[in-house]
């Protein structure tokens, strides 16, 4: 018996030899845990890079800001979105999870960056300014698409969700202005370090954009309009209008007209949303002008065509260069139209193989022409019509259409500004908010303006998915659904 006990003790120690506590600890190699992040400057800068990457993904769609407008008609290959069909409901409502994911990232950075020592204060201020900018911009997308939205300013760090309710859009707007002002204050330089990232001019541009929305949609004041004018003046020094074809060209990125653009790089991300208005090669194989069409074998799908309404607006003036620079018509030998395609975002031909085109145009968030028209819009709203027309004419003259010669009534000038914005900025994710601004501002009735809304009474803001209300009973459905 004694021998058994000795044997057992011996074997027991053998069995248990490996039994120390840290044997079941491993250190992650290829990813970092939350506990070990937020230690140094590089962590914050790398995180900001990640935020831009996600921002690019978030912006790479026409769904929220253009589909519901009059920019598009169905192209050669469907399906068009429920938003285009004005057929939105609780089941097909777009989820805002990616927007709040990006807000979470900004919140996280804004929470931890202040406690980290940087090599220079300017670097720290700049990255904080960028995060405030992106958060403001994402909330601005949300209130323009959904109206009232939950306001979340702290990162999610536990599995007990806050279950916020939807804050009135005006309250969210206040936060947007606070963030933009923070951003303006924090940016160390007045100009640009890199136009593919946010900057002080970009923050001023966003401020002007947001305040104009505030004035027209959220019952703002004329004071807001004055601030719009001031912001635009601060956003635009040193910028100039470039020749039309060069604005979007991939070999002339971040040119003198650009304030803020989101960079596409072929191997990083190249399926820019403009590819949804481009034909596959087989659709234009009979086109006599095939060589001019920005078609592609792969990666193109002509879900939408630029609308006849847009074409008609270009055709109002035979000198409008944009009718050929911004859109392109494929015609066959019998001069029949095969299809109409976007020509702004032509992508790039593969230098190794010129039969391959990939769509890597930058998404332009703000450019000078857009701000000039915003300025014209603010001036017109203040009834300073001649000044408004001066700004409007800068854009018109570049397009070759000459000065505005129409009636000098507020209504007429504002309508012209809206139309000019359409001609100039279609497919730049501006049209649906523009229509809403001028609708709430009293210039147009959006239900008459957008063919798909004719005779309908559908709400102008997007619904939220029913599943989200099930998960968070504090959320109310958008009015009208």
């Amino acid at each position, binding site marked *: 018996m004694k021998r058994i006990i000795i044997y*057992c003790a011996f074997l027991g120690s053998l069995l248990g030899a490996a039994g120390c506590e840290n044997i079941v600890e491993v250190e992650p190699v290829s*990813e970092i845990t*939350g506990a070990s992040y937020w230690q140094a400057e590089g962590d914050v800068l*790398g995180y900001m890079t990640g935020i831009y990457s996600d921002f690019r993904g978030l912006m790479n769609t026409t769904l929220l800001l253009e589909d519901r407008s009059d920019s598009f008609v169905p192209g050669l290959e469907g399906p068009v979105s429920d938003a285009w069909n004005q057929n939105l409901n609780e089941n097909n409502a777009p989820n805002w999870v990616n927007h709040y994911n990006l807000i979470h990232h900004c919140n996280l950075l804004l929470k931890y960056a202040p406690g980290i020592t940087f090599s220079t204060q300017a670097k720290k201020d700049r990255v904080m300014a960028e995060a405030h900018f992106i958060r403001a911009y994402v909330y601005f997308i949300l209130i323009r698409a959904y109206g009232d939205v939950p306001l*979340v300013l702290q990162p999610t760090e536990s*599995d007990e969700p806050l279950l916020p309710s939807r804050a009135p859009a005006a309250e969210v707007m206040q936060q947007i202005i606070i963030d933009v002002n923070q951003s303006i204050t924090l940016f160390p330089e007045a100009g640009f370090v890199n136009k593919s990232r946010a900057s002080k001019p970009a923050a001023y541009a966003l401020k002007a954009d947001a305040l104009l929305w505030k004035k027209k949609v959220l019952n703002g004041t004329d004071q807001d309009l004055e601030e719009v004018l001031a912001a635009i003046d601060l956003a635009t020094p040193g910028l100039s209008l470039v020749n039309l074809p060069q604005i979007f060209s991939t070999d002339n990125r971040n040119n003198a007209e650009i304030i803020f653009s989101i960079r596409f790089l072929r191997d990083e991300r190249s399926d820019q949303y403009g590819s949804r208005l481009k034909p596959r090669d*087989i659709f234009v194989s009979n086109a006599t002008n095939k060589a001019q069409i920005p078609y592609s074998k792969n990666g193109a799908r002509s879900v939408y065509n630029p609308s006849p309404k847009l074409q008609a607006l270009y055709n109002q003036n035979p000198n409008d260069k944009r009718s050929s620079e911004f859109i392109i018509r494929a015609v066959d030998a019998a001069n029949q139209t095969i299809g109409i395609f976007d020509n702004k975002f032509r992508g790039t031909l593969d230098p190794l193989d010129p039969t*391959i085109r990939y769509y890597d145009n930058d998404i332009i968030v703000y450019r000078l022409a857009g701000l000039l028209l915003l300025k014209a819009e603010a001036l017109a709203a203040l009834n300073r019509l001649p000044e408004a027309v001066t700004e409007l004419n800068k854009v018109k003259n570049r397009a070759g259409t000459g000065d505005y010669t129409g009636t000098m009534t507020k209504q007429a000038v504002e309508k012209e500004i809206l139309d000019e914005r359409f001609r100039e900025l279609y497919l730049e994710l501006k049209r649906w908010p523009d229509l809403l601004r001028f609708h709430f501002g009293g210039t147009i009735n959006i239900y008459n303006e957008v063919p798909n809304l004719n005779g309908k009474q559908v709400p102008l803001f997007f619904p939220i998915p029913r*599943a989200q209300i099930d998960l968070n009973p504090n959320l109310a459905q958008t009015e009208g659904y």
Partner: protein
Amino acid sequence: MLFCARLSLFAQNNIPVSGKVTLDNGEPGPGVSVLVKGTTTGTATSVDGTYTISVPNSNATLVFSFIGYTAQEIPVGNRTTIDVNLKPDAKALEEVLVIGYGEQSRATLTSSISKVGAEEFSNAPAANPLVQLQGKVAGLSLQVNNGQPGSNPQIFIRGGTSTSPEGDNPLFIVDGIVGQMRNISDLNPDNIESVQVLKDAASTAIYGARAANGVIIIKTKSGIAGKPRVNFKTTFGIDRQGNRYDFTSARDYIYVSRNNINQFNKSNPEFFLTGGRYGMSTGNPRNSRNTLEFLDTYIQNYGQEYVAGLLENEGWETMVDPVTGRKLIFQETNYQDVTFQKAFRQEYDFDISGGTEKANYFIGLGHLNQQGLVLGTYYKNYSALFNANYKLSDKFSVNTSINYQLRQSSAPGNYQNILSRSVTMPFTYRLNYEDGKPAPGEGVGSFRNRNHEVYYREKYDDNRVYRSTINLGATWDILPGLTFKPGVYWFTTEGIENSFEAANEVNANRNAAAAHNFDKQLQLDGVLTYIKDLGQKHHTNTVVGSSYINTHVYRMSGSGRGAATDYITTLNSTALETQRITTTKSNVATMSYFGRTTYDYDRKYLFSASLRIDGSSNFAANHKYGVFPGVSAGWNVHNEPFWQPLTPYLSTFKLRTSYGETGNDAINYLDTQGSYSPGSNYFGEVGILNTRLANRNLVWETTTSFDVGVDIGLFSNRATLLIDYYNKLTSDRIFGKPLDATTGFSSITSNFGSIRSRGVEVELSTTPVKSGSFTWNLDFNFAFNRSTAVELPENSEDKNRSGGNFVYDTESQSYVKVGGIAEGERYGGRWAFNMIGVYATDADAADAPYDVETAGRKKVGGDAIWQDVDGNGRIDNNDMVFMGYIRPDKTGGMVNSFNYKGLSGRFVVDYAIGHVIDNSFRGRSLASARNNNMTLKDVLGNDIWKQQGDIATIPRYTVQSDADYNYRNHLRAGNGLGTTSVYSTNNSLYYSKGDFLAFREVSLNYHLQANFLKKAYIQGLDIFGGIYNIGYLTAYDGLMPEVYEGADQGSYPRPRQFNFGVKASF
């Protein structure tokens, strides 16, 4: 042979005894152990059952023993010839089973274990041995939804432990190595001795935190003492597509597509009819991708002679265009024929085994070369297995096992593109250009003519997996009954993959990619076993041990493009600026301690208890260790004296019950810690984002199961019946708990809630006929399982439902939420829009309810009539009706085997009942998805609407895509109630029951023993042949009813296999 010679040399005896051992069925018993009782002297019978042994004197007793047969002791006396006939051990109930860290006789077992023997693997035509388990084990769901040779089936036991059990793979233990399914997938079926399925928690609890999904233990063959035995087997087979899609001819496709465009498309018919855009479009010059053109255009452009050549020599055809009345010319290529091939298979297996009392060995070599049904796919496997035991002394022996496998395979790169798209390419597309090179078909980058894809891309694929397993172990018999078994296991899997695409008109870039994956696992086990009988009647067996497992995973992948030639296919030839490379590493460590004791009193009262403590690096510091107990008890009622009168009829009657807890640690370390991962790059800079929320409270999921069973043996166990009832509750469920999107995340890995699986299993094993030399054995099994959600995260919903949507309940006349997952409900339900007819005329359609999915399109004749369930004049998700469940709840199979002298035959069927399938392949074809689908014969039949006034059951074929153009007669939205994949119809028209009876195997084996063979040193010759996956008895109209995902998108069908082979024993 060497060992044998030595054995007889040292034999110190003088009376030679010889004889022949026969088995119960009269056949010779090879490899039967013959031992002189009380000594170590022994031998084994040769293949013809004969033996020779020398005994010391006439008082000696010989012991004849053979696995599965009752040992016989025969005193030698004065005889020199002793022939023995061995009787089988009381069949299955007495078999010895491999249990966790030990073995146990079926007679004293108190848990639920099923065994599948070598006979199921020996002549099987499948590359993957797991496939052979289908229908053989009650309660084991085996789903093969992919006919690629070598592919892994989806396996789960007793309904799994999650709401999508397809991923609930059991733990696989191959010769002691604890691991995943990959450990077995390339194992040579010929080397398998047995597979055991541990189903209840009492048997699996000893594997602790990873055993909740059950355990499958695989044992490979080892040598038996005796002369070296050599087997050589060669098998040849042909695999063919069992069922085919019912496509029309190209002529009918052209006719109906052009005609329907002309009739139904009032907006842009020319876009479809001309311009060469689609399969039914003209406007295709000579040598373009599509062959359809007007005959006169061809004659005008290329001359009469050229056209005559096409028609006379190259099979081109002409027809009258239903639209213009002009003649059309075209060439038909059946893309179903292009995509699927007749596949050949060759297999060679060689093994040699033998040994002495001191040592034994088994060496197996195998090679399989199998083509897949899809053109260009194949599977090649080279395997080597070496198992050996050596007795160093009476108390100490060592064992070693070395297993090496090389797999080289090519599987479809993108199943969807090939199986639901390339196959449906209109037959008017050109197969080869005039220069003989493949044409791409429609030729978009993502999918094309399969021939083109193989020629330019897949033939360059080189995917190899190298697996090696080394195992060194020892057995130390310390004291009588006390044994220590340490073991070291080293297991590596290395995958080297290269792919390349030669320049072609679809992709001129010469894309190249490479991957190097390396997984290694170190396992250290130590097991102490103590077997002690206290007196005659108390038997105990105790095991304690520990196990350490460290798994390391390394992944490297790279890509590039722009090589200058097609001749160098590796990444070094690609343009430098296009080269991208990435690597990742991760580690998981687990430390476990376990113990088990079994006790029986006089083999009447049986008891067993086990305990395992597991620590895993996947969990946070305060939750690293978990404890998993298991207890079970049994009562061999037939061993009681009062039972004796019943014994002739009910020879065995055992009651048993068990209870235990097991875990599932299938989470990632980063789920507990949160993760910040790189990869969000912007403008050339590396970005890092918080991609996963931390949940530091995560623990393993626990499955508590209760099992009660009865083992019944009838008429001297001529028939045995095993019946089990189980009730399994999985709590602290690990799942992605949905989060309010304002958190920025859609879910967080959490423990919450519970689901229950309950069911009944029956395994019947009988010998209905046994007369003279004819035997018929029949094994039948049946399992019923019902899985329901028990507790779900609290939300504002009734039954805490998550997912799903509202439908109108006609009974309560109210809107109720259904679908998703809800407490007390079976999950996997599907709802669809109920198509109740087709509008015969435009006038009939005038009053159609408003359909929210058609974006205002006005209904006309030929559109589907949807049931407006709530009668509100509006067709929306509220009008969807229940179709059924996607997973069967009743499954089983039957194995019949017949023996007549040397001839044996098998007939195997299996079945599944209780699921529905959405035939979305058919739906998408009739919906003309992408405007460019080959037509099924439905479009010509009498059931489809063709013109005003037709009373039809299938809505019209519009040629314009049903979904893209908002017709929505065929393809409808799922609305949270249908299948989430876009490849689903959500239309009752395409739903049908999936119940099937599969004829899985009919095979024959003839065992030949003849003198002329012996002259060639051949002891025996087996000639065999069979047909596998013969067909189904089912109402489902797709290729195969083994679809458990709700929708059948177009599958890689399981082939019908024809198999022939010869096996020679030397």
